[in-house]
């Protein structure tokens, strides 16, 4: 009986204790690094042996819990499991943060599943794999593979990206978070960065990503390096590429060491060397390139904060086709009328004048800290130095002196705050400050092409992102930039007076020196920009994006101050001190479909630009060196409209078909004429075979057809040739014919050991050795483009 009583007491006491068992834990599981929702995370409550998975919002609910301490184990496919002890006295809501397992973290970043830079405009990505395959290409060549992106070339080593018909100062390049300041105003100045030092590229065609810049009228190219994992590890890769055309190659290597404590270090270096490239029928004399780059970075990556310091050096020496170096218009006629370049020599690795020798240093410090309520605060400081030397064919003592020697120093400071206002709203705020100086070395013995100047820049932005429901995301942003430019410019007195500047700008004159006059323009520019957009998801796998962006850009030093012979273009270029900012309104629509079998995007757009700065010929000027065409910058109203189409169809488990098509129409509305240098319509079609089971074998055959540009302004001019005693037309306008190129690429993987993989790639471009010239190659007047090229690519990864 006593036993029974005891038993009853025991049971009832137990009953009394457990009677409050209606507690609930409502939890949400997020990635510690970027607060991404973790779907299907496994929750195990050890005490009651209960298991469940988080739902699509990363949430879970466990009810019927008593007032006691529970042990909850949370795990996720890509994460290190974590155990929590929770003492319950009532129902609670809690956010659980998990740390991604790090190799996978990187993969996820590379697949582009992290935060988008703009939710309502189309983003094009280039993955690490694609970058590795094109190790010896330039940034411009790689971006060329995206629909709607072409390139403005000077030969084949100076490649400038053109986004939806716009380039130079209208395309912003963000190199690992910092805007590249490398004298991007010149048509023959390629971006100074090594693609082997970056892990992925995102391109936004338009100015909608206001957090980076408000003046990207053409678009933004964002390069990123992979995050270092938080674990004890050492890994690296080496890629060796060799190519027949140019008889050269590239070697790049990098090594990363990481620690569980969050510390990491990385070193990367590249050497690229090519001799003269060749067209199908002849050698392209003096087109070699020698490029070296080195970068080191180190820092600490914690869950809620991080700090990184890095330094990079990029050095490129590149020859410019000897036959393109000309005197005046009479030389131009001879060069254009000759089917083959007038100067063809034997193959050599030597790079002689004319050539460019550019050095770019970046020193950077960046850090972030996550605050519980405020959000993520990012901080970046960078110092960049760009030293550009251009060598012309010169005479006497000046032979080895550069004709242009510019040193551009830029300090940039960025502060960004990314905060979650609510479950569905996100606000980004930021502040930028920049100080830039340009120094043109007078010891060149050639008048300064770009004057000495200092420029101060500040910017302020806010972007709000709001998810209205599962179908709609709304985005709104505004930015204001202020630029103050203080320059010291020497004008030729004859030009100063010819332009009437002696009366309009008489108060900025500092001093007169013989036939030159020193002036001190101090210019202010206020540049507002804004964006508004909607993303609409429907029928599960369709998405419709609409984005409007307002961008405005202050004129660059070249547009403001040019005044004299631009040797590499054989023309006299004149800028305008009176220029104001150009303003663009871009409307962009995107229809996106992404299912297992078919993926496509259709992206029509229209860009209306007022006060668009264009350079156009106005007259022919007689000088003692012969006649030169005079090109003058002027402001007009322009309209660019076009459509970019991308498609992919999975034919079966192994075969895939890709299609791309782009067309753009550029018009000068004021003059009712076509805009110069608009990329011709083009289409690419490729068939690819991939077999993961067969050593990840990849085969890809691609056809590229570039149409003839039929819409172009007629800038031809006549010049008297004494030898023939006739007036002859200098045809600088007619675009070259359409062309078709075929290329093949393949790769296969071999496992060398448990941890290391060797990838062997083989490719041929321009398979039929087709003669062609591209409208957007500035040397198209003088020589054909590249002939056939065989390349091999070896990659070892550990």
């Amino acid at each position, binding site marked *: 009986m006593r036993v029974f009583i005891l038993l009853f007491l025991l049971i009832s006491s137990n009953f009394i204790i457990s009677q409050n068992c209606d507690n609930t834990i409502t939890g949400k599981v997020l990635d510690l690094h970027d607060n991404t929702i973790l779907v299907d995370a496994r929750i195990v409550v050890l005490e009651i042996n209960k298991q469940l998975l988080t739902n699509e919002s990363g949430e879970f609910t466990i009810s019927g819990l008593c007032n006691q301490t529970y042990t909850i184990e949370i795990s996720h496919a890509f994460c290190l499991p974590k155990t929590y002890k929770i003492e319950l006295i009532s129902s609670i809501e809690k956010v659980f943060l998990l740390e991604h397992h790090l190799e996978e973290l990187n993969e996820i970043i590379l697949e582009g599943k992290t935060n988008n830079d703009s939710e309502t405009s189309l983003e094009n990505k280039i993955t690490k794999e694609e970058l590795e395959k094109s190790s010896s290409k330039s940034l411009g060549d790689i971006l060329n593979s995206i629909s709607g992106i072409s390139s403005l070339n000077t030969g084949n080593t100076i490649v400038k990206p053109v986004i939806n018909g716009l380039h130079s100062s209208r395309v912003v390049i963000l190199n690992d978070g910092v805007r590249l300041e490398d004298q991007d105003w010149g048509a023959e100045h390629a971006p100074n960065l090594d693609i082997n030092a970056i892990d992925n590229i995102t391109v936004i065609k338009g100015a909608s990503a206001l957090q980076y810049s408000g003046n990207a009228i053409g678009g933004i190219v964002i390069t990123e390096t992979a995050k270092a994992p938080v674990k004890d590890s050492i890994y690296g890769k080496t890629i060796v590429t060799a190519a027949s055309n140019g008889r050269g190659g590239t070697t790049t290597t990098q090594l990363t060491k990481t620690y569980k404590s969050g510390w990491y270090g990385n070193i990367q270096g590249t050497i690229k060397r090519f001799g003269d490239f060749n067209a199908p029928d002849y050698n392209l004399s003096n087109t070699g390139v020698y490029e070296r780059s080195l970068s080191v970075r180190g820092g600490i990556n914690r869950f809620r904060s991080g700090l990184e310091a890095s330094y990079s050096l990029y050095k490129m020496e590149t020859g410019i086709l000897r036959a393109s170096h000309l005197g005046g218009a009479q030389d131009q006629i001879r060069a254009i009328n000759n089917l083959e370049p007038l100067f063809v020599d034997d193959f050599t690795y030597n790079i002689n004048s004319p050539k460019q020798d550019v050095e770019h240093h970046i020193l950077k*410090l960046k850090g972030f800290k996550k605050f519980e309520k405020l959000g993520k605060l990012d*901080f970046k400081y960078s110092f960049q130095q760009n030293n550009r030397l251009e060598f012309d064919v010169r005479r006497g003592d*000046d032979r080895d002196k550069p004709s242009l020697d510019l040193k551009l120093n830029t300090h940039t400071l960025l502060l960004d705050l990314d905060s979650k206002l609510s479950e569905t709203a996100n606000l980004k705020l930021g502040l930028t400050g920049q100080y830039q100086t340009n120094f043109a070395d007078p010891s060149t013995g050639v008048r300064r092409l770009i004057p000495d100047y200092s420029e101060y820049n500040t910017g302020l932005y806010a972007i709000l992102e709001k998810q209205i429901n599962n179908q709609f995301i709304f985005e709104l942003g505004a930015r204001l930039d202020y630029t103050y430019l203080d320059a010291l410019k020497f004008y030729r007195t004859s030009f100063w007076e*010819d332009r009437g500047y002696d009366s309009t700008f008489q108060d900025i004159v500092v001093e007169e020196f013989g036939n030159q006059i020193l002036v001190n323009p101090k210019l202010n520019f206020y540049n507002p920009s804004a964006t508004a957009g909607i993303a609409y998801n429907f029928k599960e796998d369709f998405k419709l994006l609409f984005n409007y962006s307002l961008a405005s850009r202050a004129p660059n030093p070249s547009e403001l101050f040019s005044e004299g012979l631009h040797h590499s273009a054989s023309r*006299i270029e004149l800028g305008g001190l009176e220029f104001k900012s150009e303003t663009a309104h871009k409307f962009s629509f995107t229809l996106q479909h992404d299912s297992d079998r078919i993926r496509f995007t259709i992206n029509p757009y229209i860009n209306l630009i007022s006060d668009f700065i264009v350079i156009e010929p106005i007259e022919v000027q007689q*000088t*003692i060196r012969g006649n030169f065409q005079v090109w003058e910058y002027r402001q007009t109203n322009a309209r660019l409209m076009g459509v970019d189409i991308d498609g992919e169809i999975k034919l079966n488990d192994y075969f895939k078909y890709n299609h791309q098509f782009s067309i753009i129409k550029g018009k000068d509305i004021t003059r009712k004429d076509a805009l110069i240098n608009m990329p011709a319509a083009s289409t690419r079609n490729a068939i690819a075979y991939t077999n993961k089971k067969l050593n990840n074998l990849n085969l890809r055959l691609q056809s590229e057809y570039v149409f003839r540009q039929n819409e172009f302004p007629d800038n031809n001019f006549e010049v008297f040739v004494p030898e023939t005693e006739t007036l002859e037309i200098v045809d600088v306008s007619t675009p070259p014919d359409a062309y078709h190129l075929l290329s093949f690429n393949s790769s296969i993987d071999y496992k060398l050991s448990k941890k290391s993989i060797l990838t062997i790639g083989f490719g041929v471009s321009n398979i039929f050795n087709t003669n062609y010239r591209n409208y957007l190659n500035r040397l198209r007047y003088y020589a054909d483009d590249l002939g056939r090229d065989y390349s091999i690519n070896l990659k070892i990864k550990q």
Partner: protein
Amino acid sequence: MKNFKLITLALITLLFTNACSNDDDVTPAPVNEEEIITTITVTLTPAGGGTTITLKTQDLDGDGPNLPVTTVSGDLAASTTYNGSIELLNETEDPAEDITVEVEEESDEHQFFYTISTGLNVTTAYSNFDNNSNPLGTAFTITSGAASSGVITFTLRHEPIKPNTGLDNAGGETDLEASFNIAIQ
């Protein structure tokens, strides 16, 4: 995180002090084009004595908007051989630099061409040559025929293909091109 704040603060200070201290601009020095040819003077001296003829083109602002100024001192005598010499100057420098010296020192890389328009009764011949015995042409002879008039053009090519048969296949880059209206009395 303390370090982080300190570094931030330090950098901001650095940036702004740097920005402010640069206000006192030092006036840069003007650049006089070292290679530009502003003036070509062709002196024609009759071999057997007589009036020397001078042809001159001067363009002091180089690529600037002002046109070159051309002068011809007089007409050539008929059936006369003249010894010609060419002088090139850069008059943007003070004193003027004699570019002819440079051209003659680098004779392998330069060549003058003389283009005679139809109807002008003159013939030309090179009087000086480079180290490979190819023509240089800063010295030449010009022989006039019967009375006539026309244009003579002097062209200086830098790094031409040598030897050549004329401007057509000489390539290189035109450093100078000057035309003169000439009459033979």
